[in-house]
């Protein structure tokens, strides 16, 4: 390879415009927040929301693009556009649920919102990266911001514990990832994804250095998507973090991490999938099984949702094991449904929590919710049913798509495990419905009417969960064309390198 010269680099600013907007917005919010009281941070929230909206509009412009920018550091394709859009929507939902929450819990608004923007930036960068180092940059930007977010409730020891735990284990896992990148560099002589892809097509596949690097990457990504046995941080961190941040971790962080994971493994390491699919098979099987079994005995709703998120990571890994184009689009469709359903569920958790206190996140607090607040109860029931995978909701179509992909690749055993896991999961999701509809007692809750933003978030999530399930056609198209566009870009580069 020739050494890079500045002149040969294609400085296309347009593809990274959404990233720039988010980055600038983060700094503006930080500056604008100087002197704003903690209780009055709502304005900053709206500013954040507006900037996310602008970034969304510019990201829409990227749909259908192909090629690379910045000498291959940035991938300009439907895949990055898809994930950028999804991440921006998830971030917007999180901001929407934070508007009241931040003030009530006296989180310092400027830091809170700008950290959310910074971590959004990191996620988007991961989705857009065309280079392992850029993935690493994105991962770190995202993670460091989220470490700080987890500890935002400074007066709550659980929040402090969450931040420290997440930071220590996260730093450790980043080490694995970086070491994996180094080994892959050693094996292939490059950290750019497209040339790696090209190198693999040669007789590189059995190289021990490469395989070791692969394993390290797997561990690094495994930590971020909370796959068992790298999941141990998840429940404590999810429980201790402020609830909107938990929602962000369960959706945004997971989407960002899967964006990188899927691009590296399914697109660029796809040619040697025979070397990693067995490992992913095992990872998928134990992730869903452990996640679901431990979720059965949880009494705290945030911990339960944490283990449920682990289990869902397991289903997504089933899709990754299938290692094919149809599996890639299945994962992407699943993530859309998963994002809205989980964001909605966490929004309900925020609504039920007692203001400014940690109480209210036990499952027994949900008893009798149907009497006190029928709309909230119905929304939660819909989210839980979607998580279980009951048709015609988004979660069902996602599972159907993933299972189809795995069966098509011939993984009948893994699908049977996944199916039995779904039945197990029904028990704990339905237990919450039992508490809501069939038991009495519980806490008195503030009504939603005083928190219109939160109500809007829940309402939108309900609509999305139902619509994406009943009319999945456009989302399936979007997911499949996005994934194919990444594949196409990879192939284009491969052929370009060969000539």
């Amino acid at each position, binding site marked *: 390879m020739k050494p890079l010269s500045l002149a040969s680099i294609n400085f296309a600013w347009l593809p990274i415009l959404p990233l720039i907007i988010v980055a600038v917005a983060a700094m503006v919010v930080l500056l604008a927040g100087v002197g704003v009281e903690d209780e009055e941070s709502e304005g900053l929230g709206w500013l954040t929301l507006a900037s996310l909206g602008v970034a969304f509009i510019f990201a829409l412009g990227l749909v259908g693009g192909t090629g690379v920018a910045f000498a291959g550091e940035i991938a300009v394709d439907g895949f990055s556009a898809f994930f950028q859009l999804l991440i921006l929507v998830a971030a917007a939902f999180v901001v929407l649920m934070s508007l009241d929450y931040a003030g009530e819990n006296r989180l310092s608004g400027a830091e809170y919102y700008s950290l959310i923007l910074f971590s959004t930036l990191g996620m988007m960068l991961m989705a857009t990266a065309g280079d392992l180092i850029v993935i690493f940059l994105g991962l770190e930007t995202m993670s460091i911001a989220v470490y700080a977010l987890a500890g935002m409730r400074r007066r709550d020891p659980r929040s402090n514990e969450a931040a420290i735990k997440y930071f220590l284990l996260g730093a450790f896992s980043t080490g694995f990832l970086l070491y994996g990148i180094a080994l892959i560099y050693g094996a292939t002589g490059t950290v750019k994804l497209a040339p790696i892809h090209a190198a693999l097509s040669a007789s590189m596949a059995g190289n021990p250095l490469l395989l070791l690097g692969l394993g390290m990457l797997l561990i690094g990504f495994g930590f971020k998507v909370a796959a068992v046995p790298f999941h141990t941080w998840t429940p404590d961190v999810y429980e201790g973090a402020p609830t909107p941040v938990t929602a962000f971790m369960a959706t945004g962080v997971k989407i960002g991490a899967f964006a990188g994971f899927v691009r590296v493994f399914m697109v660029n390491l796809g040619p040697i999938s025979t070397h990693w699919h067995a490992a992913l098979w095992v990872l998928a099987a134990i992730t869903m099984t452990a996640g679901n079994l431990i979720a059965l005995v949880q009494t705290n709703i945030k911990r339960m949702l944490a283990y449920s998120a682990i289990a869902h990571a397991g289903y997504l890994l089933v899709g990754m094991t299938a290692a094919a184009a149809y599996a890639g689009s299945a994962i992407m469709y699943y993530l859309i449904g998963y994002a809205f359903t989980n964001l909605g569920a966490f929004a309900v958790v925020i609504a039920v929590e007692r203001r400014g206190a940690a109480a209210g996140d036990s499952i027994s607090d949900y008893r009798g919710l149907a009497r006190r607040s029928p709309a909230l109860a119905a929304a939660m029931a819909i989210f839980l049913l979607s998580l279980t995978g009951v048709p*015609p909701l988004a979660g069902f179509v996602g599972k159907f798509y993933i*299972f189809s992909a795995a069966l098509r690749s011939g993984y009948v055993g893994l699908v049977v495990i996944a*199916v039995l896991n779904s039945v197990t999961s029904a028990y704990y999701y339905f237990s919450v419905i039992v508490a809501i*509809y069939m038991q009495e007692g519980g806490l008195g809750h503030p009504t939603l009417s005083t928190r219109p933003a939160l109500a809007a978030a829940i309402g939108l999530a309900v609509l999305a969960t139902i619509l994406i399930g009943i009319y*999945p*056609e456009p989302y399936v198209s979007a997911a499949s064309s996005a994934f194919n566009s990444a594949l196409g870009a990879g192939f284009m580069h491969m052929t370009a390198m060969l000539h």
Partner: protein
Amino acid sequence: MGSGILTATIFVPLLGAAFVMIQRDERAVWNSAFIFSLVPLALSFYLFAAFNPHSADYQFVEQYQWIPQFGISYHLGVDGISLLLVLLTTILITLSLLYSGGGDISERPREFCFFMLVLETGLLGTLLSIDVFLFYVFWEVMLIPMYFLIGIWGHGRKVYAAIKFVLFTMVGSLLMLAAIIYLVLQAQHHFGRLSFDLPLLYQVPLTQTQGEWLFAAFALAFAIKVPIFPLHTWLPDAHTEAPTAGSVILAGVMLKMGTYGFLRFAIPLFPAVALEAVPVFLALAIVGIIYGALVAMVQPDLKRLVAYSSVSHLGFVILGIFALDPAGVEGAIYQMLNHGISTGALFLLVGMLYMRRHTREISEFGGLWKSVPIYAGVFMVVMLSSVGLPGLNGFVGEFLILLGTYLHSWLAAVFAVTGVILGALYLLWTYERVMFGPITHAVNETIADLSGREIAVMVPLIALMLFMGLYPKPLIDRMAPSVEKMLVPIRVAELQRDQQHHSSALARLFDLDNQSSLSRGLLRGRAGEGVPEASSGVREVLNDRVLDERAGERLAIQKMAAK
């Protein structure tokens, strides 16, 4: 294409469910729910009248693209197998709503009506879907409202019963989902396109092993729903703890979804395997019939007794289905309707008694004949219909089933007859203990007889019992062509099996070079499939014979349709 009448039948209840939720007044809730349930009732009567009894095909078909990427379409249609079950569903839902509005459900009536109407949508959709994906969606949808009905308005250990019901059903249905996907992928492999359309899937060629596993997955889902012994353990709990209307729908309609699934999916999709499985299902059906009857006999609780009698009655239905001949299957469908009406009526009567006395213990009653004569009279008719007295509906179904079974296996028929006798025994004995003798509890002297509303609920059911007992022709006429058509693949599979025996005997006789591989191949696959080693001559003969047979059957059906 299509008139939209099936869509209206399915979704008007859902509209009603939404409408009910915005009603403030309790009376308005009941009235609007009842009126909304009358629409699908009227539509299904129209379907019954306008149905062409000479056609074996789907009628009133509607088909639109839904998820084209997966080959999923919104494909509805009704044939002789589903038509009468649709009618049963709409009748029982309407009557249940009418009954429940009379004081049985006092808590949260709005949500109750909401779930009843959503349940109706799920049930009708399950019956009318021709696309397998669509079928699965409705199949799961009907689970959720029933879960809420048991869990919120049930009695005693209602939460336990509701969760048990959901988990049992889900194990089966999710495995079935995996099987559906697998089958569709095989179809894609073979026909080059993804499609969840049932008529196409009927033609997917499968190896013996594939067929066996797929049949097992489908059969498990349906067997849990029926339920076939020994998968019945969820049923007594769910039935006993459910509110009366829930029990009526659960026993009357929902269990039929299992038997309907056998008729529509498990058997026609995998005819060769189904044929092999006949002895297993006949045996399980007989165990169910006798076990259900014996356990029902010793129940001290009236509702539990009726619940176990369902296990026994559904055993008859399974017996008829797996007789795999027209009389047996027609009898099974007839018996599905009978059971829906008779057991539905029994649950309603038990519910009426419970509302008055707040107990269902048989020992709490006795001598009711004197205090509530109308009730006792109605109970008598319903009980006799359940026993299978000639002149009432139960007799027709049981007779056809026994006839069909006898043609297939006289031994099974003999065992089944003992079930009939046991059925008569426990029902008559129960009636005696509840109605006759002296009044042992003073409170029973003063309980009120049936109210006008309750009579209005029971009269249509009794009318149906008489009508179906005396004049079964219009019903049998409508189901016959579809049943014949459904059995065609079974006849073909039977023929192939016989030929395989024949051919392997032949092969042994002539001691062909590749004898062992030939007979192995023949025993494994359907004719022609999976026997690459077999000499091509034998294969051609087999194929020709099968094709001839198929053409013959088609001709017969066409002739029938032309008539």
